[in-house]
């Protein structure tokens, strides 16, 4: 399960994207400390990420623009802010558990989202607040390369600390909290305090991630409190799989990568993410990392002859299902768009839609039969894979 980080990746445009991937990975790991390890689902984690971002931006602007701390140490401000707000928010939220807890976290984030545009001096209104990175320690921090390495260092350090946390008494208790918080009370523990502690640490690292983003963007905007930001860290973490330490980071990296790669091609990326998430929840609860783990166990325990065909079948099934689904969604997307409707009203019959280099007519049966066929074929292969797996148990 070890991911080797590659500092050697260096094409310029992708560097910014890689930066964002790292930040997302850290945010997801911080999030899953609370949701995965402590078992407390938070739907409003953007609050602490955002607070970290804003605190950092203010710190960058402080002292007449010179910055409160040297640039490389700026994320510490984000961490401190996240920690402070996390303690207060956690104190309230952890008084309840389960779904109510989740709703409280969401409400706190929404509170900030509603309040932020009103407090212009703190959050800068519509345009947000901007700052400039100051040179420090002999480097000017003007280039993306330097920012990337700075982000990389902080992310690696934070991940190491988060991993270490799992080895400490506090970390073990976090797991116990998830397993049986009720029993902990009868063993003499102040369960509320334990909850606040886990919450605060998770918020601290989220704030740090926010600070890194603010540092790299040289700006912060209240859109960072949006429910979508909280939602995406949830999706990222669970798609990656909260059962393993690197699962959420992996999920965040994959989703960021795909989001970056396909956001020019399709407007429905969020929908795909949602479908992927629900698919994972229903069929592969351990996430991508869980699948990788089961896959490698399959090869190890059952040997090549069984594992290879099953894996191939499964992969083909996944590709076919995705292709069929994407086709339908993309067609629908274009069919329902404003431009198309205007065209259709002007023309006598339904105009064709250009997709994947060909023109398809929405009226023809073939257009829809193709994706349906892909879906059916994909489903058949998936069932075949499952049967093979079960037959040789």
């Amino acid at each position, binding site marked *: 399960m070890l991911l080797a980080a590659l500092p050697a990746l260096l094409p310029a445009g992708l560097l910014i994207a890689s930066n964002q991937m790292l930040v997302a990975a850290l945010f997801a790991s911080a999030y899953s400390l609370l949701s995965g390890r402590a078992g407390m689902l938070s739907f409003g984690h953007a609050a602490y990420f955002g607070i970290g971002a804003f605190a950092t931006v203010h710190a960058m602007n402080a002292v007449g623009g010179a910055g409160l701390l040297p640039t490389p140490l700026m994320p510490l401000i984000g961490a401190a802010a996240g920690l402070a707000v996390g303690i207060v928010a956690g104190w309230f939220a952890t008084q309840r558990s389960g779904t109510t807890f989740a709703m409280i976290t969401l409400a706190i984030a929404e509170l900030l989202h509603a309040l932020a545009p009103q407090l212009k001096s703190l959050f800068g209104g519509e345009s947000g607040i901007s700052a400039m990175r100051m040179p420090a320690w002999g480097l000017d921090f003007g280039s993306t390369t330097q920012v990337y390495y700075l982000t990389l260092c902080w992310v690696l350090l934070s991940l190491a600390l988060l991993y270490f946390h799992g080895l400490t008494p506090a970390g073990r208790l976090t797991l116990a909290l998830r397993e049986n918080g009720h029993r902990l009370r009868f063993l003499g523990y102040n369960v509320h305090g334990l909850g606040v502690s886990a919450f605060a*640490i998770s918020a601290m690292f989220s704030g740090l991630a926010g600070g890194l983003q603010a540092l790299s963007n040289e700006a912060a905007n209240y859109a960072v409190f949006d429910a979508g930001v909280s939602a995406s860290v949830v999706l990222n973490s669970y798609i990656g799989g909260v059962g393993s330490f690197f699962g959420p980071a992996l999920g965040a990296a994959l989703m960021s990568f795909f989001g970056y790669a396909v956001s020019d091609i399709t407007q429905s990326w969020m929908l795909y993410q949602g479908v992927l998430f629900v698919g994972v929840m229903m069929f592969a609860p351990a996430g991508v990392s869980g699948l990788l783990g089961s896959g490698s166990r399959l090869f190890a325990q059952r040997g090549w002859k069984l594992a290879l065909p099953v894996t191939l079948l499964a992969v083909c099934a996944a590709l076919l299902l995705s292709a069929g689904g994407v086709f339908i969604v993309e067609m629908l997307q274009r069919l329902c768009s404003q431009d198309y409707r205007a065209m259709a009203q002007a023309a006598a019959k339904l105009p064709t839609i250009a997709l994947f280099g060909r023109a398809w007519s929405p009226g023809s049966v073939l257009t829809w039969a193709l994706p349906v066929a892909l879906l059916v074929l994909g489903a058949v292969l998936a069932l075949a894979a499952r049967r093979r797996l079960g037959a040789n148990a």
Partner: protein
Amino acid sequence: MSSSSILNIRGLRKSFGATEIIRGVDLELRAGEHRALIGPNGAGKSTLFHLISGNLRPTAGEIVFKGQRIDGWSPERINRHGLARSFQITNIFPRLTVFENVRIAVMQRRHVQYNFWRRIEGMRAIREEAEALLERVRLQHRAGTLGGEMSYSEQRSLELAMTLASDPQLILLDEPMAGMSAEETQYTAGLIRELTAGRTLLLVEHDMDVVFSLGDSISVLVYGQVIATGTPDEIRQDASVREAYLGEEHAA
């Protein structure tokens, strides 16, 4: 008598809405006493345990433990004061190892719950105490197994170990033999006798053999009230007890 009494319950009442479950319970335990609590189903034995251990708040009455009123205290505060309980339905950490289960119970007294700067593997005292406890319940060979994957009676032993980890002066055991075979029951009874020597024990049990072998004295709880307390012989001959246990062969 009251100078060496470790637990003193006076006029305890508990209602759930209009229904009164505990209807005036008086109970006194001397330090080192092993008392069995018996009674028909629905008498309120588990409710009584919940009240004593802080899981429920009494509607009226008082509970005095080691000279202090603990009614209304939170479960963790009561536990830290020296009272520990086990549960009728096994209440462990199923996806943690047996060793970890015990370690968590042991950690509490070292006050390290907020320690996030030292590896727990490095804390030798905790590790040794946990290992010793596992040995006492004879589970050391299962230390690496996940709690949820053990046999039922092994889980009950684990439950016992966790209850004892806080070195309590008063132990409440809620039907520790529930669901066990005769062999397992005997084994566990021996274990309990060993582990509770020198401590005060309040035990809820249905198996009369266990009751008579583990209990110095017996209290009978019927319909929310203690109708009799005494030595096993006294209880065996008590008319009101026999009446309450219609059809119970062992009371004869």
